[in-house]
């Protein structure tokens, strides 16, 4: 939850509690109007401001304007009919804000998931050079090079296993939760995470053509 979402949730809860309290609190006339305006303003002030700004910028017809018209209309009706039923205006604004809050929460979640998915792009590849392991930019690895993938690392480039066997976590790519066992001769695709064994892989594609880059 971001700070903004937390603040909006607090506003929604505060307004809902106030509404319930006011429901049991007998009041009349102007005092009643003022009392009900408290939760209304708490929950809806940003909508009213946005609606006003929208009109100023000649972009009036959006959902903020709609909510402003609906709730102010309900308040005027309550005043004119003399019923003093301001609950309607407050409730409309309250439910709208609840909807907005859930929308923002859901989008925040999917954003997080997507950025986690972006993370499968590997940032280096290990190649063996004169008995030492060197980290290089996967862009520079040519087809047919032997790369080494250590446990816990991501497979940078598609290739065929030439030495070692291990288990790969493919869930980021395929959604399959069961780890996949690989042995010599198996093709593996980039973006998987090597879980337990060291693998030597002969690359069959350039980095740009590999599965993780295509995504």
């Amino acid at each position, binding site marked *: 939850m971001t700070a903004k979402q937390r603040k909006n949730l607090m506003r929604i809860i505060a307004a809902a509690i106030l509404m319930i309290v006011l429901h049991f609190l007998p009041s009349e006339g102007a005092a009643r109007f003022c009392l009900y305006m408290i939760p209304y303003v708490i929950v809806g002030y*940003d909508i009213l*401001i*946005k609606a006003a*700004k929208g009109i100023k*910028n000649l*972009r009036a017809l959006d959902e903020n304007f709609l909510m402003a018209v609906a709730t102010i209309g309900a308040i005027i009706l309550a005043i004119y009919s003399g019923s003093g039923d301001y609950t309607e205006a407050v409730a409309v604004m309250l439910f709208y804000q609840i909807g*907005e809050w859930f*929308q*923002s929460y859901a*989008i925040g979640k*999917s*954003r997080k998931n*997507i*950025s986690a998915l*972006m993370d499968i792009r590997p940032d280096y590849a290990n190649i063996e050079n004169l008995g030492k392991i060197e980290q290089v930019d996967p862009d520079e690895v040519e087809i047919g090079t032997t790369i080494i993938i250590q446990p816990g690392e991501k497979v940078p480039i598609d290739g065929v296993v030439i030495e070692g066997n291990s288990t790969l976590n493919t869930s980021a790519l395929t959604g399959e939760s069961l780890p996949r066992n690989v042995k010599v001769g198996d093709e593996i695709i980039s973006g998987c995470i090597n879980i337990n064994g060291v693998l030597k892989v002969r690359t069959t594609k350039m980095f740009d053509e590999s599965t993780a880059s295509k995504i």
Partner: protein
Amino acid sequence: MDCANCANLMEEAANKIDGVKNAVVNFMTLKMQVEFDEGANAKEVMTRVLAECKKIEPDCEIYF
């Protein structure tokens, strides 16, 4: 920014500004890519882009 349509409106607004060659707003990653016309002052153009976007989404913010 909570809806894809607002992102689209911001993109359209940014594209209309002088000095902007091409602007793309990615709603999901919250990123805006702006290509400038040659010789344009990037900082000054971005200030105008921000002003236009504020008209669409009063509580939006662009960091550049």
